[in-house]
């Protein structure tokens, strides 16, 4: 398949791994920011092709995982309301809130629907004027533009029954938070190619310069990841700290201006709590006041919900790269995809799920 098989070619992958072995003369710690990259690394066992001195640390880039439990609880409360059609990406349905998950609400009679695009939720709102359609807007800068477009479309159609439960988060503040931790071992970053396709690299330039860390904007296929690691290692070995783009077939330095315009029109930067990590200043997106009628948190009374988090779950440390999933005492024992204590065990991009699925025996 075009743009897929080329980037999985076995000979090229082996050559790239050899080049990394040749380039790395000292131990280095590199964080791949995005959970999609983590899954690729484990699925293709790329980490096992690298020199032992090179450590990959899995980052916080899983939007499902970092969605705070109180936001999930609000989603569960909304989904349980009889007038609401609650629309979500499939990933979110198994993520545990304080009391159950969206599947449980669905089986108790809630109208929970899996959609693949927020536009489908807008269409549902148009077709069901007598119901309230709420879309669970989870994701990084990759999904924010389409959710912004959905709000703009709902406004254009004059819909009075569509709203967004916005839980958007931003990557650059998360990278700063990782670097600010006193226990941080990360010396270089693989940034998320899809996020930077939207945002470009302008926000990454000051991070690289101020923090003196190389950042390589990297794709998701095996060859992408190995090339990104090689570029990062070469910077580290030569003492450089620049923002480089490996994923050139998708990322332009300026990003996608149309998508950025839509985001800026609908959303403003807000401080957000990250599940397991805590509040990161200016790390999320919320609806601007002029779109308040599309904001589910203002449209519905969601007060009086108290969140309860499992005290045993160490997802916060996993998300910051401080421990690996199998170092958590609950891993694959009291925490499994069937009975998750935290979101990284159920999300398609969660590091715990990747370790459970691909590495349980080790």
């Amino acid at each position, binding site marked *: *398949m075009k743009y897929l098989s080329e980037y999985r070619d*076995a000979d090229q992958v082996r050559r790239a791994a050899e080049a990394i072995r040749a380039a790395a003369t000292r131990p280095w710690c590199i964080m791949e920011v995005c959970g*999609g990259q983590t899954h690729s690394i484990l699925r293709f*066992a790329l980490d096992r092709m690298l020199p032992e001195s090179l450590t990959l640390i899995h980052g916080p880039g899983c939007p499902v995982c970092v969605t705070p439990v109180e936001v999930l609880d609000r989603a569960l409360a909304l989904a349980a309301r009889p007038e609401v059609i609650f629309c979500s990406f499939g990933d979110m349905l198994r993520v545990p809130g304080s009391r159950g998950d969206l599947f449980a609400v669905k089986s108790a009679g809630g109208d929970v629907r*899996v959609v693949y695009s927020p536009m*489908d939720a807008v269409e549902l709102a148009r077709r069901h004027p007598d119901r309230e359609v709420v879309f669970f807007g989870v994701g990084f800068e*990759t*999904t924010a533009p389409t959710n912004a477009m959905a709000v703009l479309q709902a406004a254009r159609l004059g819909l009075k029954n569509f709203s967004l439960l916005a839980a958007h988060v931003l990557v650059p503040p998360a990278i700063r938070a990782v670097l600010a931790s006193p226990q941080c071992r990360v010396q270089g970053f693989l940034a998320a190619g899809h996020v930077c396709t939207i945002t470009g690299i302008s926000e990454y330039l000051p991070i690289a310069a101020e923090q003196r860390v190389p950042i390589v904007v990297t794709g998701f296929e095996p060859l992408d990841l190995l090339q990104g690691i090689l570029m990062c290692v070469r910077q580290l070995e030569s003492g450089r700290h620049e923002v480089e783009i490996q994923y050139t077939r998708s990322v332009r330095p300026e990003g996608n201006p149309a998508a950025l315009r839509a985001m800026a029109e609908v959303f403003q930067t807000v401080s957000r709590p990250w599940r397991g990590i805590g509040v990161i200043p200016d790390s999320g997106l919320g609806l601007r006041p002029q779109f308040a009628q599309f904001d589910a948190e203002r449209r519905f009374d969601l007060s009086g919900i108290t969140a309860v988090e499992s005290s045993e779950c160490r997802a916060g440390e996993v998300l910051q790269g401080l421990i690996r999933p199998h170092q958590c005492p609950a891993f694959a024992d009291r925490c499994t995809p069937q009975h998750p204590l935290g979101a990284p065990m159920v999300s*398609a991009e969660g590091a715990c799920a990747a370790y459970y699925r691909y590495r349980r025996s080790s």
Partner: protein
Amino acid sequence: MDFSMQCPVPFSQYSTVQLAHGGGGRLMRELIEGLFRAAFARSADQQPEGPPIGRAAADPLRTPLLEAAHDSAVIEPGAGPLAFTTDSFVVSPLFFPGGDIGCLAVFGTVNDLAMAGAKPLALSAAFIIEEGFPFDQLQRVVESMARAAATAGVRIVTGDTKVVDRGKGDGLFITTSGVGRVPPGVAIHPSRVAAGDQVIISGDLGRHGLAIMSVRQGLEFETELQSDCAPLNGLVEAMLAAAVDPQDIHCLRDLTRGGLAAAANEIAQDAAVGMVLHETEIPVCAAVRAACELLGLDPLYAANEGRLMAVVAPRSAPAVLAAMKSHPAGADARLIGTVSAEHPGVVELLGPYGPGRILDLLSGEQMPRIC
């Protein structure tokens, strides 16, 4: 096979199913006689040799269903052990690219019998119909079942109809049960799987699951994919005939819900053996691969309705594989791995670059991802 889609005469004055169609009175008789009996009897006529063994006792007509006054179909199975299975079908939507709930209900049960090495003799079909269900759709489903039964060489000999209140069902549910005769010398069971056995699959994976997903509400995407929905009993017969000894076919599984991953894990766990599969040998067509990449799904977990996995003694594997390749239902058959004594209960998938990973069971259905 030339088989008319049209019912010769309209059998009902109603355009939708009424509660009374399940009420045991005149309307129900009209439904059974006019639709089910007519279609399934014609299907039986399409099978010149009749069912392999099954025959209606003391019934001059070709299928016992025609004896509407009887509560049971009576068949003479002949000698040897019987295989007996049942399955319910609740697929949504009812019609999808490459098939519908009707052919699925017939092939699903035929294939379950075939996985025991059995030749299907007879099926039952029970319908739970929601009040208001359109008759033209019911007719399409029933005609599809009749066609599927003719293709698989099996007769639908008994059935049941219930109509539930509007809102109490999702249009139409079908349950089929089937009996089949296990030929002499056939011994298919996970407990017979042994280290050194070869693992073969009958074709490329994921077509049914992705075809269904492409038309499911909220997820619609354009694709030319068709379900692989097909009977596997003919293929299994060819495999048993090709083996050095029929007993060399140690285990068979149809790769339905949960796909290859579920079937491989079940066998590994039941037989307490390890299994090593080669990812690069597992065929997946370009359209399935592309849709899976887009939706964040893994084709190894996707459902199939016309694919099987066989665990075969090494000495018979080449002949069985060759027989599969020359059968239409197994044209893309491949040897994908081996059974080992190490890591009992674990399926290891060797990737394109050497190092392996676990091919684990999922906790539920695969869900499309966020980004």
